[in-house]
């Protein structure tokens, strides 16, 4: 039976790996804002031991002044070394984290229920829309979620087998999750308190002390750095993402005419509304993944719609299915959204990836329960899940890469590849940092150019303000044609809404155009006419 378990699990993992690796460089169509920052920092650390901003081996990556957690960038170094500076060189780690999660959710299902629940849980996570979506992007939260899950498995083993090694591993993995993403800096302390209380009758205090000590040793440096940053830097993560600093909040608190009591209540109740939204049907089953920029029929929730019945069955029968583990599982499920609820924009984001695991375990239990009582109904649900997955796969693998170009700053890599063959003949390269149909977005082209090889990490360190961000012969800035000064042997890459006008028009010619994934014009490329000679 155990052999069969491992065999089926292996098949699920291989199929899940295929779903996560296929066209990984094309879908999502371009490295996104945070991805390119992690990718560049990882590469830069590998090359010169400094991040983009010149910090040596930092505990928080300054990145876009959001001070990212460091673990993803560091763990990515060997992958970047092996696979090089491309999409795979930063996304594969997230895929691996997802695959490890699939293995451990199966093991957790096996420990808390039985082999069947474990397999069903792995199957559901393998086909889960949110997990597929998150694992194909280099999200630190995906890595952190994996560590939380592995730690949770260690907790169950510690409860069952009472061996100190599981206490040490639990402390280590939950500690590493704190190194991997900001949400876990709040979530792990809550989980430690809650699960220590829940386990007090089953795990001796001595074993808990081993776990607490390991955790403390692992997290101490990162917490020290986090507190230091929060106190000294107003741009620190905790200072910018908290719900009462969300867009419009400050204006409401300072300028609104409503009374003080109401202001305080709105302030206090904001996270409660956020928290409840994590359990809403629409976010969970119909539109929470927000694949498209507008409301579309093929949008999906965090879970496939066909899994709703088994979640309900699982919740109703959770006591019978999971026996003594039911309390722990429900607490896990309820605790996960607490920290994301304290941030603004939490519901639509990936801050709550851990939430997938307890939900899927409950679903797996629900399916198993149904299978035991009404086998035919359970089989019909599997059929519906597969149909539902096919619908999702068309949305994600076919339409998402077409409609999501702007979400990933599409075009900078392509622009670099366009000018790369002639790069030696240019003495000056000007790249506009705005993009989008109306030029409404601001990008980070210097990171794309740096990562894909336009200049070295050492040159990046010498960047300065020279009429825009100046790195060697490159200038990254907003281009106002009327104020531009003519330089010979220059190439311009500008937003498509900013075609050349004014006094420079006769001196430049259009040599290329980069189209967005939806085939709308994204960038125009001009070079000086003197290059023809």
């Amino acid at each position: 039976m155990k052999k069969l378990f491992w065999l089926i699990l292996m098949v699920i993992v291989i199929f899940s790996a295929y779903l996560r690796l296929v066209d990984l460089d094309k879908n999502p169509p371009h490295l996104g804002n945070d991805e390119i920052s992690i990718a560049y920092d990882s590469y830069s650390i590998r090359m010169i031991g400094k991040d983009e901003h010149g910090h040596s081996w930092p505990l928080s990556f300054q990145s876009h002044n959001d001070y990212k957690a460091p673990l993803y960038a560091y763990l990515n170094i060997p992958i970047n070394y092996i696979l090089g500076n491309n999409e795979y060189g930063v996304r594969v780690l997230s895929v691996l984290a997802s695959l490890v999660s699939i293995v451990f959710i199966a093991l957790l299902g096996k420990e808390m229920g039985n082999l069947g629940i474990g397999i069903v849980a792995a199957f559901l996570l393998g086909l889960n829309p949110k997990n597929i979506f998150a694992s194909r992007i280099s999200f630190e939260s995906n890595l952190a979620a994996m560590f939380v899950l592995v730690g949770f498995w260690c907790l169950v083993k510690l409860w069952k087998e009472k061996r100190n090694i599981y206490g040490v591993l639990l402390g280590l993995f939950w500690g590493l999750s704190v190194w991997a993403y900001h949400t876990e800096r709040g979530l792990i302390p809550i989980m430690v308190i809650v699960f220590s209380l829940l386990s007090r009758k089953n795990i001796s205090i001595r074993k808990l002390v081993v776990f607490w000590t390991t955790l403390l040793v692992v997290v101490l440096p990162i917490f020290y750095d986090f507190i230091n940053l929060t106190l000294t830097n107003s741009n620190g993560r905790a200072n910018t993402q908290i719900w009462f600093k969300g867009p419009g909040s400050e204006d409401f608190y300072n300028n609104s005419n409503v009374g003080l009591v109401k202001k305080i209540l709105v302030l206090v109740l904001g996270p409660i509304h956020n928290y409840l939204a994590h359990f809403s049907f629409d976010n969970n089953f119909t539109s929470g993944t927000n694949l498209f920029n507008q409301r579309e029929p093929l949008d999906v929730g965090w879970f496939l719609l066909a899994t709703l019945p088994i979640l309900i069955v699982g919740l109703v029968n959770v006591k019978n299915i999971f026996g003594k583990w039911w309390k722990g599982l429900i607490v896990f499920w309820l605790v996960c959204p607490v920290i994301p609820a304290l941030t603004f924009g939490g519901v639509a984001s990936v801050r709550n990836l851990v939430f997938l695991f307890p939900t899927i375990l409950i679903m797996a239990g629900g399916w198993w329960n149904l299978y035991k009582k009404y086998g035919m109904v359970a089989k019909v649900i599997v059929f519906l899940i597969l149909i539902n997955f096919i619908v999702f796969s068309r949305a994600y693998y076919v339409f998402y890469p077409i409609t999501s170009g702007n979400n990933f700053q599409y075009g900078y890599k392509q622009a670099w590849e366009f000018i790369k063959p002639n790069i030696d003949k240019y003495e000056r390269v000007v790249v506009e940092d705005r993009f989008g149909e109306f030029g409404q977005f601001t990008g980070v082209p210097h990171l794309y150019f740096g990562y894909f090889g336009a200049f070295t990490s050492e040159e990046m360190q010498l960047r300065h303000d020279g009429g825009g961000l100046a790195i060697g012969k490159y200038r990254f800035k907003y281009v106002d044609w009327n104020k531009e000064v003519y330089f010979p042997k220059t190439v311009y890459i500008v937003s498509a809404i900013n075609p050349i006008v004014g006094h420079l028009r006769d001196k430049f010619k259009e040599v290329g155009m980069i189209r967005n994934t939806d085939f709308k014009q994204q960038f125009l490329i001009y070079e000086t006419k003197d290059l023809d000679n």
Partner: protein
Amino acid sequence: MIVVSGIILGVFWWRVGYVPEIQWIFLCLLLWVIWMKWGFKTAILVLPILFFLNLQVNSLFGIDGWKMNFNLEKINLTNPAYFKIIDRYRYDDVGMPYRLRMVFYQNWQTVFLWIDSTFKILSIGHWVRLLGFSGFGLLILGIKNLLNDKKRLWLYLVWILTVAFSSGMVILLDTKKAWTLATIPIVLLISEGVKNDRFKKYGWVFLLVFIVDVILK
């Protein structure tokens, strides 16, 4: 109990600020009496009428003489903009065999949008916006209380779900109108909640939460 639940509902209807026209109240009452008296046997009659009545309240449907009018642009299932998106799917998904595409990418896919809207109004956040935290708490206690009388509970829930699926047809939902026709079962569930022992024991907590809800209006 009836007084307490009446006050709560009165205040929340004031929050919502919508008074339905009198004819809907009478029609709804009539349907409710039939529904509660003869139960699920009358489902084939009561539920479709309730469904269409709710569409009428939400300005999606009207009868003019013998002619029925639907406000197609405001309905999830028939909005032309969504049909255009589905057309785009059909033309863009060149990886799928042509015949399959012609079957798969059809207007039936707007059903997903209908379900999405319905789920939105069935979500906890929406209930809290509608009834406040105290009202929502009482509603849950009411459902818990009625677990002993499952038939009555199902009659209430099926009524509420019919109204939810009908209101889910609306693209831009008006919270005021979405639940108008579900007022009766909601009132009754809340009054059931008032009977619950927990309410009797922790009534002061509900009072505090109720005050918070009123302040937040």
